[in-house]
């Protein structure tokens, strides 16, 4: 059983600046990448608002469309798009770090591991765009 001593050893807790992510570009990129989650949540809520407006009738949906035309909303959505692109690119570039990376017994190059995700992304974007435009 441990005996009481007058001078207890303290755990080492290095002091960290509240703005540590500004120290290096890598830290800032990490903080920006993680911050994309706030815009994901924002856009999910915005989609729920759109669904609620759709269910409430043509008048309410016209109000929703008018809200979306507001310059502030367009600026926020442009920033959200930038964060979504950052999320997509960093996410697909992470795949080679976590996926099985052997093909025919040899290590697979990073780009070969990431490329299928970029192709699926492109295909999904085209198909959804055609649905949104009413072509499909």
């Amino acid at each position, binding site marked *: 059983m441990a005996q009481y001593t007058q001078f207890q050893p303290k755990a080492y807790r290095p002091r960290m600046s*509240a703005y540590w992510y500004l120290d290096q570009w890598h830290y800032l990129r990490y903080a920006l990448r993680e911050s994309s*989650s706030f815009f994901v949540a924002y856009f*999910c809520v915005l989609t729920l608002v759109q669904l609620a407006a759709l269910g409430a009738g043509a008048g309410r949906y016209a109000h929703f*469309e008018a809200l*979306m*035309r507001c310059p502030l909303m*367009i600026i926020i959505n442009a920033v959200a798009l930038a964060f979504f692109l950052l999320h997509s690119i960093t996410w697909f570039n992470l795949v080679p770090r976590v996926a099985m990376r052997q093909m025919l017994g040899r290590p697979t190059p990073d780009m070969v591991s990431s490329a299928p995700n970029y192709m699926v992304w492109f295909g999904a974007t085209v198909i959804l765009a055609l649905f949104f*435009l*009413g072509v499909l």
Partner: protein
Amino acid sequence: MSAGKRSNEPVVWFLFGVGGFFAAYFLPVHVLFYGLLFPSGLVHAPGYQQTLALVRHPLTRLYLFALLTFCFFHAAHRMRLTMSDVLNLRHLNTVLAFLCYGGAIVGTIVTVWLLATV
């Protein structure tokens, strides 16, 4: 960790991972059209009836349910870790977990309700 006590981390990391792929594949085109191109008038926006017909299709409802649910949990997990690590709020970890995952659960319930009633 005591013997026999299971961690719930695999569940939240699974939801985070699947949501990350959904967000990476699908959200950019959603915000590009419904957040920028349609509102700014650069592309002619579909009318109310056309949008309603699209959303009422069973496959669209299924797609939107998966998209929104997984994205809510993806965002919840990352927001919790961001606030905990980036903003140095580790001492509020339990509160953050309750708010973030609770928000994701509420978002999922609202999603189901709206998709069922639209």
